[in-house]
């Protein structure tokens, strides 16, 4: 089915100010959507409170509202502009939440505005943990076990089923405060009690721990004819426990067997169908147990995301642009890939290189702030690098970060020169590093190198950090070659 002619004007919601977790990737996706839908001849109305965005330039949309992105304000814009459709999938969680608010209050229905790109039931099913769990059960996919509890008694019953260690997540606390992990009963009761106290609705989620599992993301697109493409797979270098936004990530996935990868593909496609995303892109996150291979679904986002921006840059496949076209009726086989001009968008990208993304943190500006990495994202930016191998892209990404390093160490900037230590000093330093790398922090990659130089073997590093042995072997190749280089001098020197 080609372009929809029954709609003329489309309201696009932006994502508002740049905050941790919602940054300029939504300017990238929103700008693409505005441009492509304008080219398609639609009248575009845009709201975004962020004046530093390209998308809010007066020359892009037909009517641009630099106004607070709230249900009340959007309602006023709808009254004034009378758009036929609302596209809520380009502006992150802010846009999605606002769209749900507009739909639930009957504002869209009252003004005859159709939500395109994602439907209200799909958004609800993807975002409500209980509905999502039920959906995954219907299609036979595994999820970490979890129970919402409101009292200590319910919590005690829940932990009998879930077992230790367990994750405790208070509902609706700011920045996920009050959450944590419990390894024993005493710790558990203490953390649940505190979580119930902190949660404004006195509710906590008790969840099976999947800490240390391998984490993957798939970027998936589906059209109304049920064509599905997997744009890209992304593997987290850091295992589960570190927010994806704070993880070093690699595309395509490096350590899956073909069978495991096909499983994730099949599962993603089933999820897209069950949740009912039929005119856009989604991000699906999985955890894979490093030994048993047990695979669980973590979550899915029925919208463009930070990861879809990364996947677009990593593959050359413009997810937001194509998602916008799917939202107005096109199907994947009707959209041309503008890189090759001959292949349609239903051709899955193939890449013959490796992409590495590394986050950038700014803890130095917040003295006292907890600088350990966990479930709450803390990075303020990121870099990506492309190379023929993981090693090349990793080193390129590290020197892109502008943190005063010029690659994976070996740049004369180390606080400690491990090669200059005697055996006793080296053993003591190794012990210090064992403790340090057990907790993910901004500089863990550099510490891994030091740990290797200090004599810690890969299998021990794997035990301590949960980082896949393949990645560790790659890092070790770089470290080993550094030693080779140190054995050389300039010719004629």
């Amino acid at each position, binding site marked *: 089915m080609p372009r929809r002619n029954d709609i003329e004007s489309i309201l696009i919601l932006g994502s508002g100010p740049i905050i941790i977790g919602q940054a300029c990737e939504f*300017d990238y996706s929103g700008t693409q959507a505005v441009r492509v839908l304008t080219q398609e001849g639609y009248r575009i109305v845009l709201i975004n409170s962020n*004046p530093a965005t390209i998308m809010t330039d007066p020359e892009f949309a037909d009517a641009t509202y630099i106004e607070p992105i709230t249900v009340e304000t959007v309602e006023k814009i709808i009254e004034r502009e009378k758009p036929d459709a609302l596209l809520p999938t380009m502006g992150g969680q802010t846009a999605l939440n606002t769209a749900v608010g507009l739909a639930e209050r009957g504002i869209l229905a009252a003004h005859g505005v159709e939500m395109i790109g994602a439907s209200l039931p799909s958004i609800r099913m993807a975002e409500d943990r209980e509905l999502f769990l039920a959906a995954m059960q219907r299609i036979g996919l595994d999820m970490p076990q979890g129970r919402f509890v409101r009292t200590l008694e319910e919590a005690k019953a829940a932990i009998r089923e879930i077992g230790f260690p367990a994750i405790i997540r208070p509902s609706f606390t700011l920045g996920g405060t009050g959450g944590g992990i419990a390894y024993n009963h005493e710790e558990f009761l203490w953390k649940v009690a505190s979580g119930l106290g902190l949660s404004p609705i006195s509710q906590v989620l008790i969840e099976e721990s999947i800490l240390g599992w391998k984490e993957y993301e798939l970027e998936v697109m589906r059209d109304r004819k049920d064509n599905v493409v997997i744009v890209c797979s992304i593997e987290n270098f850091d295992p589960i426990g570190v927010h994806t936004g704070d993880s070093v990530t690699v595309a395509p996935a490096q350590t899956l067997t073909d069978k495991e990868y096909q499983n994730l593909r099949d599962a993603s496609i089933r999820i897209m169908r069950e949740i009912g995303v039929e005119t856009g892109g989604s991000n699906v996150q999985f955890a894979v147990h490093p030994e048993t291979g047990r695979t669980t679904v973590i979550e899915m986002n029925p919208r463009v995301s930070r990861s879809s921006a990364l996947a677009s840059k990593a593959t050359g496949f413009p997810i937001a642009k194509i998602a916008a076209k799917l939202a107005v009726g096109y199907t994947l086989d009707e959209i041309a890939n503008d*890189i090759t001009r001959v*292949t349609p968008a239903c051709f899955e990208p193939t890449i013959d290189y490796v992409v590495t993304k590394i986050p950038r943190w700014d803890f130095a500006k917040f003295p006292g702030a907890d600088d350990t990495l966990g479930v709450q994202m803390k990075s303020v*930016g990121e870099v990506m690098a492309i190379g023929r191998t993981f090693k090349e892209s990793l080193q390129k990404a590290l020197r892109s970060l502008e943190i005063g390093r010029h690659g994976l160490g070996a740049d004369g900037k180390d606080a400690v020169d491990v090669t200059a230590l005697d055996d006793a000093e080296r053993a003591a330093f190794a012990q210090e590093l064992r403790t340090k790398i057990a907790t993910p922090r901004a500089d863990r990659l550099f510490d891994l190198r030091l740990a290797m130089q200090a004599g810690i073997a890969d299998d021990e590093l794997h035990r301590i950090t949960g980082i896949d042995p393949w990645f560790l072997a790659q890092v070790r190749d770089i470290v080993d070659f550094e030693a080779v280089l*140190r054995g*050389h001098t300039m010719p*004629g020197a």
Partner: protein
Amino acid sequence: MSNPITPEILRQAKRLGFSDIQLAATLGTTAARVRALRREWGIEPVFKTVDTCAAEFEAFTPYYYSTCETENESRPSDRKKVIILGGGPNRIGQGIEFDYCCVHGVFAVKEEGREAIMVNCNPETVSTDYDIADKLYFEPLTFEDVMRIVELEQPEGVIVSFGGQTPLKLAKDLAASGVPILGTPYEGIDLAEDRERFSALLTELGIRYPAAGNARTADEAARIAGGIGYPVLLRPSYVLGGRGMQIVYSEKTLRDFVGQALEISGEHPVLIDKFLEDAMEFDVDAVCDGTEVMIGGVLQHVEEAGIHSGDSTCVMPPTLQKESLIEELKETTRRLALALGTVGLINVQYALQNDIIYVLEANPRASRTVPFISKATGVPLAKIATKVMLGRTLRELGVSEPRISGYVAVKKAVFPFIKLVGSRQFLGPEMKSTGEVMGIADTYGEAMAKSQLGSGAKLPTAGTVFLSVSQRDKRQKTLGMAQSLIDAGFTIIATRGTSTYLYENGVETRSVLKVSEGRPDIVDEIKNGHVQLIINTPAGEVSRDDETPIGIEALAHNIPYITNISAGIALLEGIKQAQHDSGGVRSIQEYVGGRKETV
């Protein structure tokens, strides 16, 4: 057992991604020598296309990355080309604003008939969308990586002044290697960054600036600060986003801090400036073509001096009523732009104390206020600047100073304290914000209210206001505001001093303890949901310390937090309006007048 390096080992190192600087460090030489050796041996990276199809089909989109192989897929065209260097990873102090400027640079280069080549390594940005520039190199912004692209493309010039500090840091080495830098010559950039030379220039031009000095030891710092008089502002040189800055009120704190500052700035000295407490700050952005200057806009900061310009709330047009002072700001900007040899954008920051204008700093490059000013006025400053850098004159472009009339635009910053739990510092001379919102409306009050809403705060129309004002704010204006709050139906709780002052002047309030005075204190009141609006005007070291827990708690509970009486009065006007009707919306095209396709 040291052997001379062989071409095979060097090639292998490059394939593993080792940079010239790493090779220099491991081989015990300099990056320049490594580079020379590589070139002698013909070990140069080539560029491959990101083509979605692993080279199975021909690719038309010029999107490249480098790798150490043999076949180069990037073929330079025979057109005139301009390379625009991006801003690299977002960080506090260098964010989306610079990507905005780069993208405008690309558009303008294309409009001027040149091939626009973008280099950047940040996947979140619009500038790295392969649809934007004619050619995109997704590469690290280091001298080594950029030079390779320059050598291949042989551009007419490179734009380094749009991507923030990242490309600017490369300017010196690029210029030294004979790469043409478009716009303000490196000399002008360096002159503005070098405090001593810049101060000398200001003196020569007869422009005032805060008394200042620089020190390399704590003793020297104490002597200088004693001479200037406290409070002083300490900062390391050559930084963006105010990293390592602090306001210091006593010699003891000064000595503690100087050690840290020297650590951050390395071989550069610590700069000591007189801190102008109570001063009003302004940002002026302009475009200069070498002979003429177009003022893009004058932004007045809502908070008084002491808060980093990237963190303060700003308003356009300025609320300052003295037209002669605004004229003086513009005229000073014009003189400075010409004196620095600016070709392109310039931003000048000012403080106004007792009707005297002081220059705080000048930067002949894109500033983070450029997109806001461009949105508020509808005039695309970065585009105009790019065309000027390519040789056009302002006169030729037919552009003139934009005027804002009939509406007000407010810029408000947003902060990450909720996610970076445990921070011991709130706002100060060091930048902390991650982003910004704009409120635009017919009146200052409504624009303030919208900026609060846009930043996620709840605009109260009833409830309790916490009021704590500094000694200097215990005056008529504050009394009037307090009375208006009560008339609008609010209850006031206030710190002891403020409460006593208000009581003596006939305004009833309940008093509440400061954080340092015992429990329950104001933070307890906020946590218990008893406060809907905070107006706190700190002055001096102690009350600035007290501000941290109050400010962070206000953010956690989405409570508007105002640090200046004039801003409080403006917001109150917005609140009063919201009590009657929820206000209107207008598109930016209606405010600034239609689509502005070209300049």
